[in-house]
């Protein structure tokens, strides 16, 4: 299995390299530090949520409400910081807790209502989102305190020629999240149990696994990541835009599935997900830089998704 897997990830890697080469030669603005950093920053949010989605898919479930959870977390975090006081840590804390609470709610509903997770999370998506927009009237929030709006860079330094280099916080967050997810999935019993549950839930039950506990963890995790990821997003945009996140569910799911996760559960890897996110990010960015009219974007992304899930599914079918 590890051999087959390496083949698949290798193939993905080749595609990414091919795309990078293609865009690098098609336009001079693609292969620059600025652009690549920009790319990393703008896709950090998606990447963080994809890590959460990976864990959910491995467990055999799915979550369509995480974009709404991110939106709720953003709002509450913003209100807390602006109307009360706070610092960066409390911002992440508040958002993270909201994410865990809402994600945990999903978990209980999915466990006890005995209906497909997809339908339950479509319901909670609309419940969370609709309610939030109703209460906030869909307002954009701009008026963040100065300490929030300054650019947060880690490992920054000023080079000899005066250029300022630094890695933005959201990017560090992305890396940390990937590392954390990798450790959980590969080095903790919790993670291995999640894999097991996704592979054969009845066997997991018989082996005495705490299915409810695992479900709570999985959905709270994606909730948590959606929450803290959304803070990262606000740090970049310096504003909360209520309708910016909801609607992008497919991109996140697609990135994870592109990277080898299966909707049936039991499979997937952090490396694969990272590559899936990278693939989408590069295509999106490349199209913009090449000046392809934005009207083409949705179409092209849709095409890529269909082609890749199609190829994946067909290969799986042939092997069976």
């Amino acid at each position, binding site marked *: 299995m590890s051999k087959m897997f390496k083949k698949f990830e290798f193939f993905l890697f080749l595609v990414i390299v091919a795309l990078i080469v293609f865009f690098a030669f098609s336009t001079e603005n693609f292969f620059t530090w600025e652009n690549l950093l920009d790319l990393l920053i703008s896709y950090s949010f998606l990447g963080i949520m994809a890590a959460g989605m990976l864990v959910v898919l491995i467990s055999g479930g799915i979550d369509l409400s995480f974009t709404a959870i991110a939106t709720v977390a953003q709002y509450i975090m913003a209100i807390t910081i602006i109307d009360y006081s706070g610092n960066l840590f409390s911002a992440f804390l508040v958002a993270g807790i909201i994410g865990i609470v809402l994600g945990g709610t999903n978990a209980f*509903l999915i466990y006890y*209502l005995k*209906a497909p997770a997809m339908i339950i999370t479509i*319901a909670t998506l609309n419940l969370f989102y609709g309610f939030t927009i109703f209460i906030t009237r*869909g307002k954009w929030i701009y008026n963040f305190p100065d300490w929030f709006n300054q650019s947060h860079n880690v490992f920054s330094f000023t080079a000899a020629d005066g250029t300022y280099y630094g890695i933005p916080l959201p990017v560090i967050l992305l890396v940390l999240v990937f590392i954390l997810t990798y450790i959980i999935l590969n080095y903790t019993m919790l993670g291995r149990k999640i894999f097991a549950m996704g592979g054969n839930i009845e066997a997991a039950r018989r082996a005495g696994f705490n299915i409810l506990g695992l479900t709570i963890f999985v959905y709270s995790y994606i909730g948590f990541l959606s929450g803290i990821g959304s803070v990262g997003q606000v740090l970049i945009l310096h504003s909360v835009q209520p309708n910016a996140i909801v609607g992008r569910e497919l991109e996140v799911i697609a990135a994870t599935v592109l990277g080898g996760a299966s*909707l049936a559960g039991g499979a997937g890897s952090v490396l694969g997900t990272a590559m899936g996110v990278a693939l989408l990010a590069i295509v999106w960015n490349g199209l913009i830089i090449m000046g392809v009219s934005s009207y083409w974007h949705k179409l*092209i992304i849709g095409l890529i998704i*269909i082609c890749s899930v199609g190829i994946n*599914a067909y290969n799986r079918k042939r092997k069976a």
Partner: protein
Amino acid sequence: MLNNNDNNLFNIRSIYQKDPTLSILVIALLFIILLLFVFFPGKVLTANNFESMAFQLPELGILSLAIMITMLSGGINLSIIATANMAGIVSAFIMTRMITESMTGSPIPIILLAILAGWLVSVLIGIFNGVLIAYIGVSPILATLGTMTLVGGISILVTKGYVVSGFPEEYQYIGNGIFLGIPIPFLIFLGLAILVSILLRRTPFGIANYLIGSNETATRFSGINVNRTLVITYALSGLLCGIASTIMISRFNSAKAGYASSYLLITILISVLGGVDPYGGFGRISGLVLALFILQLVSSTFNFLGLSAHLTIAIWGLLLLITIGLRNIKSTSI
């Protein structure tokens, strides 16, 4: 000896036993009507309101039919709204480009062409979905999310986000006209509901669709061509989306890439409320129709109360959860 309940039309208990879902829905509907009668007399249950409900409800109803048949087969069609919009855009383009102020002769042949073209496009999208799901083996969620994005993308590309509008009067009649006192969309919906019901319950295709929803493998082993059945299901789903769009764009007198996006959740809600098993294999049109009426009444009441659209959709989400919860309680007590 077989049960002979069919003869006991007036045996209420046996009717309840035959289909508890239906009975509960009827009771719920009557209950809501009663509530409205008592608390908002003359405000919601007016002839005017009934008429406007009868105009709005059909497109939602037909879209619900579209998603229901796919859910019965054990899958789901998340691309129904995108498909409907695309079909509408195609029809709209044909009509606005080919029917000009200065033309002589009746626009009706072109209208027919436009309508059929829209339906053709929606059926093709449905076939594409079916092939992806049945022959290539993509899971229905992924496949239809993918086509939703792809078709949505094509719609945006083709319209550049603009609205396509300005249809001839004759066309507007479809969505706004009345025949024998009943709004035409409503007649279309009723006709479709009856046709689809017969198709599902009395034809080999329909029954096979249910069986696949319960156990695709065993159905295949029994000699049913599962792949072909699924393609037909999704093609039919597409066709229904096309018909819904014919009515929709007539009522709005325009077509756009992003219409009716909130409808998706509602169609799922109506299906599940109407008794469709989210895992597939069970569900009846009669239940769906009742659920549709209930939701339309509730929706009109919310309108009347001035509830924000966002709160309404949050309530739909909550209602879907409650419905699923009630199903569970019901099934564990059996």
